[in-house]
């Protein structure tokens, strides 16, 4: 799928039909989509998602569009297939568009991996919600958090075991949330509730020396609570390795994980399902070697 997108410049747009400044392409897509009684394509039976995918040519003309989530009856799958993955469906629709575009001369080589940049002393957090019923949520999301020297101070090298209140690390621990899940939103603003509180008594302890590098371990359980009115919380364990030079107390690198459970609310049967939520943390530069 990603290789099919190599010639394209991708962009994401969000909004509503009554927005005053709808881009032309969006206006056209929605006019066609909502103007059709039966929805987008055969067998759709009026069902549609809130995600549409569109292809524009270099001059901005709409070439092709399709609903982001296939909503076809079984008889509508190509070549008599009984199933079609979302990836295959998207690729098939994209190929319809590329057939109409003149792509000779557009780049087809692989683009470099561009992860969000946390700056020189910042942190990257890779989060995955291991949801079986919605596999797209398993795709990792990378958050970049810019950090200052003050943010690192609680993690100064410990001469002996000491306790650290997790709230001191809120700036980056608060990124551990399922970014693709929209159920925890403010009903007025429709914005996702942010993490407002983090609790936990963590332990930071020296963990030996290797290759002239000192190691420390940060471990413990944290509880994250969002800013919603119902004290919604979830929790998990963290296990983090920090390295230090022999002469400086500030960490040189950080690598570790969060392993927890996110209780996802199911409004249909008004119950919660426990879904594993995992994250990996890494702070740059990674200058150390394994012990």
């Amino acid at each position: 799928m990603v290789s099919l997108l190599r010639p394209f410049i991708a962009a994401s747009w969000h909004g509503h039909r009554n927005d005053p400044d709808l881009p032309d392409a969006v206006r056209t897509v929605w006019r066609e989509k909502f103007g059709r009684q039966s929805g987008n394509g055969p067998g759709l039976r009026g069902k549609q998602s809130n995600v549409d995918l569109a292809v524009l040519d270099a001059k901005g003309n709409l070439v092709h569009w399709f609903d982001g989530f296939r909503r076809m009856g079984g008889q509508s799958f190509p070549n008599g297939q009984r199933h079609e993955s979302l990836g295959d469906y998207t690729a098939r629709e994209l190929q319809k568009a590329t057939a109409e575009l003149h792509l000779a001369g557009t780049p087809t080589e692989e683009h470099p991996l561009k992860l969000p940049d946390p700056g020189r002393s910042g942190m990257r957090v890779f989060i995955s919600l291991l949801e079986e019923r919605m596999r797209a949520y398993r795709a990792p999301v990378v958050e970049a958090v810019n950090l200052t020297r003050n943010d690192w101070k609680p993690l100064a090298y410990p001469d002996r075991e000491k306790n650290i209140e997790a709230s001191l690390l809120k700036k980056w621990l608060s990124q551990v949330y399922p970014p693709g899940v929209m159920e925890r939103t403010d009903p007025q603003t429709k914005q996702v509730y942010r993490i407002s509180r983090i609790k936990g008594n963590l332990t930071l302890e020296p963990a030996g020396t290797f290759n002239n590098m000192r190691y420390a371990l940060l471990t413990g359980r944290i509880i994250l609570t969002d800013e919603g009115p119902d004290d919604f919380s979830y929790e998990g364990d963290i296990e983090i390795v920090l390295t230090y030079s022999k002469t400086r107390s500030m960490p040189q690198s950080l690598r570790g994980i969060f392993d927890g459970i996110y209780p996802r609310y199911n409004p249909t049967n008004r119950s919660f399902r426990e879904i594993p939520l995992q994250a990996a943390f890494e702070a740059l530069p990674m200058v150390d070697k394994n012990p």
Partner: protein
Amino acid sequence: MKKFLAFLALSMLAMTVIGAQTSEVESALKRYAELRPGEKDLAMYRIDWAPSLEEAQSRALKENRPVFLVIIHAKYGDLSSGHC
């Protein structure tokens, strides 16, 4: 002799502790390696995202390339950063 045995016992205890800590570090780094997504899992970050539709269209015109547009019918949502 007692002092020597006490010293030996303490030294051995220290060695055990250091060994245990190294093993804990190795175990934590192993877990990190397991959970940290690899390049294949991060393929979405190989897509040539523009920060806005306007910028995508401006670049498309200059570079003579098509635009792939994700339209989300909602008050917020930015697929380029993974926030649906």
